[in-house]
């Protein structure tokens, strides 16, 4: 399948994003929830890198807004952070998508550090609790999970 800006590909993008959202919000035991990956952010990063026309800025913003409404914290917090991430991914997609998976994971690691740092800063400005070191723990997990995300989502749309 060729992913352009067509309606079919948009549908695929939003369906995968919705599945990722449900998975990332699943109620899990407390110990596990510290390490629970932020799958929605990974999926948004994937589509922004591999098919920048299908999702685009709108996907990032909407995904962030959904996280805001469901997750709590300040309204617009995740929307801002994820918009920023989507923008960077779209800008750099030609650079990153041709790199080997390991290197892509490094990019993902840096991107998620930036994401979490943005949230952390907004929490601080807004007078909410900024949590402790444990809030950063999902970042390496996300980076390690990137090859899996690429494997699964790549199968969905590449003519392999």
């Amino acid at each position, binding site marked *: *399948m*060729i*992913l*352009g*800006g*067509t309606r079919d*590909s948009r549908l695929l993008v939003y369906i995968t994003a919705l599945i990722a*959202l*449900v998975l990332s*919000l*699943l*109620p899990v035991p*407390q110990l596990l*929830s*510290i390490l629970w990956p932020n799958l929605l952010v990974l999926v948004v990063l994937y589509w922004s890198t*591999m*098919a*920048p*026309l299908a999702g*685009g*800025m*709108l996907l*990032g*913003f909407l995904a*962030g*807004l*959904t996280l*805001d*409404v*469901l*997750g*709590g914290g*300040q*309204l*617009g*917090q995740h*929307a*801002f952070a994820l*918009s*920023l991430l*989507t*923008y960077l991914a*779209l*800008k750099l*997609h*030609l650079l990153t*998508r*041709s790199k080997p998976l390991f290197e892509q994971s490094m990019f993902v690691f840096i991107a998620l550090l930036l994401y979490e740092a943005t949230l952390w800063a*907004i929490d601080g400005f*807004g007078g*909410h*609790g900024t*949590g402790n070191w*444990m*809030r950063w723990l999902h970042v390496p997990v996300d980076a390690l999970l990137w090859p899996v995300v690429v494997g699964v989502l*790549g199968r969905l*749309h*590449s*003519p*392999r």
Partner: protein
Amino acid sequence: MAFAGGGLNSPSARENAPGGRFFFCALLSLLLMYFDQRDGWGQHLRYALQAVAYPIQVAVGSPGRLAGAAAEMFRTRASLRTENDALQKQVRDLTLRTQTFQALQQENAHLRGLAAMPPPLVSKSLLVDVVDADLGPYRQRLVINHGDRAGLYRSQAVVDAGGLAGQLVRVGPWSAEVMLITDPEAAVPVQVLRSGERTIAVGTGKTRELELPDLPVTTDVKVGDLIVTSGLGGVFPAGIPVGEVIDNKRDPDTLTAHVRIRLSAQLDRSRQLLALWFNAANPAAPMSHAMLDTLPAPSIADPVTQPPAPAKPAAAAAATKPAPPARKILPGVGPHGGVLAPAPKEPPQ
């Protein structure tokens, strides 16, 4: 590249430069953050978004509830029977206790010189189902299946079968979010039942524990003490059980006590909660939410310094004499059995 299709070629991608859109999205998010901090129409937006989010929350919470329902279905007759027996025994015990409780309440009213017994504290309650749980270390929240349409309001107190659960922080049309007392941002004004010592319990992000920070080493707290709400702060009424002291360490260097409480409520297990409405005529009731909304911050004023009736004797006299009928009863003096706090230690100015 496997991905290199016609629509993905770089020229077309370059046409859709994301810069302008990013600027727009970022601006919109910043505006959202700004208005969310203020209590204006940011609240209305929240209200609408809460309604949109409700189906997703139900979907996300459903695997856990399905598992629970399945377990329920396959329970044996024997286990149901033992549970039934236990419940019947509990009902008998509680009936007995209620009878003595009513006699005590009557006697209490008589001792205080009140002409009549105060009306029951809880005027109405609503059983609500938990549809989604967020019990992480940074947030301890539950989503329940009723909202504005059922009359629930912001800052309403919610309990479970064991004790205090939390308060409503966001209310949508058909759902509401409960901030549990274990949430790291939550704080409950509490009282040690045995000694009457008042302090504040804060959430730690652990679902079964609270902490009492900022206590001096001289505090009269022991392991096993029951902790109840003190009724200060205007959200929770007095005398609702919060938990039991399980750990009590004194630090001689900083002259502080580290006290941990195990919750009475089983927040990680309860699938149903009770939202409560209080009788404003009962002295233990918190302020009405209409009053709370007009206040800039929850007021922790001593009611003795704010005479409810004009014909009130001097405050110092009120602290020593038996209470005259018109006097507002001190916070913490609840109608719950045995929750009788001593009068404030220092007479107010």
